[in-house]
């Protein structure tokens, strides 16, 4: 087995412009938030997101302006935090294309 332990910066560098990402977790549960915070700072463009119920981490990438397409069933935070704010803003401004399949 190969050792794959690395820093957050090294792992973020693996993700390139225009790639399709599937972030784990659901809504506010166990999404890779810290990874998304660092990737959101890295100024990637044209990322695509897919998932059944993308949540916080995926929304951070939308809000950071890194995403141009989302494939999803439900995209939100649930409870008092409502719909995913970054996704919603991106779709309303026409910067993100939404492909809903629920």
């Amino acid at each position, binding site marked *: *087995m*190969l*050792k*794959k*332990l*690395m*820093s*957050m910066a*090294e*792992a973020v560098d*693996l*993700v*390139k412009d225009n*790639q*399709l*990402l*599937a*972030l*784990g*977790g*659901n*809504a*506010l*549960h*166990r*999404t*890779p*938030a*810290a*990874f998304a*915070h*660092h990737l*959101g*700072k890295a100024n990637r463009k044209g990322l695509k997101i*897919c*998932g*059944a*119920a993308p*949540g*916080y*981490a995926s929304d*951070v990438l939308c*809000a*950071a*302006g890194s995403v141009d397409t989302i*494939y999803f069933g439900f995209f939100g*935070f649930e*409870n008092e*935090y409502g719909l995913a*704010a*970054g996704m919603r*803003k991106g779709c309303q401004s026409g910067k993100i294309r939404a*492909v809903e*399949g629920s």
Partner: protein
Amino acid sequence: MPVGGMFGSDLLEYNPDFYSIMKSPFNGEEVVCVRSLQPDWAIVHVQEADIYGNARILGSKFQDILLSRAAKKTIITTEKIVDTEVMRKDPGLTAIPHFLVAAVVEAPGGAKPGICFNGSFAPEDNKADDAGMKAYLKAVKEDTVQEYLAKVTEGRV
């Protein structure tokens, strides 16, 4: 790829780029086919992983096992690194095996301000960080997301 069901859904009509009805080559029955997506990366936060990428998920796994199988490669972030001996003692608990994984990053609290199940069912252990969520929503509303990201990655939110 073929899927069971979907007949009666308006999605077939509204999204012809993704759904198509074909005849089964075996018995001629109609089958709905869905365009498949292959993610370049699955990115999954887990409670325990070893340095090789063997990963355990505590509590609900959602679609994460499927994502790791569908993607070209998986990036794991983990609450803590555990010794491989722990994995060997009960291999059935390994949700994502090492050979699917390209990177392992130790990131305690890596799901915050969201929730990461820690084995406790107490309501207070299964709540989002309210101050953190409000700070994020405010940043989106005020178009200060990069400032928020700078703060949160330095632990200042």
